[in-house]
């Protein structure tokens, strides 16, 4: 089954159009990396999908049209979103933040809450240690873990993640990405991952989509993209690639 289909998605802020007719299809159980330079529109695309930004075009989540629904509705239909800027409830405790995540899960998974909480504690031991603290006191990386953990505990069918590695220590990032991979199977989770760290996200992704100036510039299996010259030039910072000195954008555009 296709988990998410977006057709001809356009979004604008005031007079400026940011997304120009993005088409997107994600199969159930897939991990898709969303790549793109700074300002390409990754965050905007994720926000449009979770209905935080007004957009035109059709969006279908697991067979249900969701364009036109509210963010909260879409969330209840099984769309999770780890937003840019983390969005933790700073005045609630870490535990309360996590509980809010668990409360958002579908009814049939309520029984699994305890074991899922344990899993989270295992992935991010520090969150368990700090459960009684106000979330606002957390360090940047801890807050990032909390944001991801909270979204996972809601047991979404499709998880949109905006730069999860932001502020995470390398070991933790690695662990998180591995966890994504294992949860994809264990929880039949579908993930759309917007990440600047292309190398890392391509490692766990099945497929990658490259946005450029609000359009899908490139799309393909992750393994293929890892070798793609243009991509390397633009996003892996490979200074020796010849593409780096010519216009990388030009290379992506065709």
């Amino acid at each position, binding site marked *: 089954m296709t988990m998410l289909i977006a057709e001809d998605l356009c979004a604008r802020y005031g007079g400026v159009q940011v997304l120009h007719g993005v088409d997107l299809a994600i199969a159930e159980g897939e991990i898709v990396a969303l790549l793109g330079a700074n300002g390409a529109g990754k965050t905007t695309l994720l926000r449009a999908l979770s209905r935080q930004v007004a957009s035109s075009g059709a969006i279908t989540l697991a067979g249900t049209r969701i364009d036109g629904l*509210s963010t909260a509705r879409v969330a209840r239909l099984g769309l999770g979103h780890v937003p840019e800027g983390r969005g933790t409830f700073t005045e609630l405790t870490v535990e309360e933040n996590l509980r809010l995540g668990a*409360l958002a899960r579908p009814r049939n998974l309520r029984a699994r809450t305890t074991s899922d909480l344990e899993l989270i504690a295992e992935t991010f031991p520090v969150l368990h240690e700090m459960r009684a603290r106000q979330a606002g006191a957390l360090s940047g990386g801890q807050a990032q873990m909390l944001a991801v953990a909270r979204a996972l505990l809601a047991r979404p069918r499709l998880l949109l993640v905006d730069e999860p590695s932001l502020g995470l220590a390398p070991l933790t990032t690695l662990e998180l990405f591995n966890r994504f991979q294992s949860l994809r199977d264990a929880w039949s989770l579908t993930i759309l991952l917007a990440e600047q760290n292309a190398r890392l996200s391509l490692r766990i992704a099945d497929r990658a989509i490259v946005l450029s100036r609000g359009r899908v510039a490139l799309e393909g299996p992750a393994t293929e993209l890892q070798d793609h010259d243009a991509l390397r030039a633009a996003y892996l910072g490979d200074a020796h690639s010849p593409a780096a000195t010519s216009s990388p954008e030009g290379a992506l555009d065709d």
Partner: protein
Amino acid sequence: MTEFFQILLDGLTTGTVYAALALALSVVFQGTGMLNFAQGELAVVAAFIAYTVLLGGIPPWLAILIAVAASAVIGALLHVVVVRWVDTRNEGVLMAMGVALLLGISALASIIWGTDPRSFPSPFGSGIIQFAGLRLTYQQAGGALLVIVAMALTALLFQKTPIGLRLRAVAQNAPSAALLGLSAPVWLALGWAVAGAVGAVAGVVAAPTLGLSPQMMNFPLLMALSAATLGGLTSRVGAVVGGLLIGVVTAFAGRYIPFLGGDLNIVVAFVLIVIVLLIKPGGLFGRERMVRA
């Protein structure tokens, strides 16, 4: 000595009205992040509803329940019809909206029910409890009980139930709450409903003592705002303790600092508040807002 304890008791019972209103303020604040200047007027409306129902021959306890339920509905409606459309991230606008509501509801209540004070029979009956040379009217005792019950119930709701947790989450960060499937308009309306219900308790506790009129809560509102600050706006226990404390402090100040009298005695309460806040900016029981770099 008896006089001392009697005045202490009087102060406490005077304080129950402040406490009830402060509790309602604190509930709105926690449930919606707004300092609601119109809370007193909402309590008045609730009291008028109870009054109207009582006149219809309904037993007092049922009348209270009806008023509480009706106020909850009014609170929710107020959110849906008015407050929802305000830019909730802008404190100034929220506060100004509170003032507009205060003026509007007060005018509306005056139009509907007139401005003359009416007698509101105590739902607890009339009579006094005597002990150790001290006395307490049924109304005072019953009012205190009602406030304590309201405090316990809201504490339970906010601290122990998932609903309370969600209410707090939506009030604190609505966009994030939406990502967890919590629709802000619905939950904030619920928050207002809870506050309306608590406000109704304030109205019912106040009306028999103060005489039912649209202006009934003007002064108590001021004291309740102070009480909530003293105890900490983020804390329901704080609101109640603050209300009682202010009742006691003003009663003692009026009695034992003759120069202050029955009007300037509130200065003592205000001074107390400033001192407490300078030492503990979140109030006696309040939590300070977490800001870190």
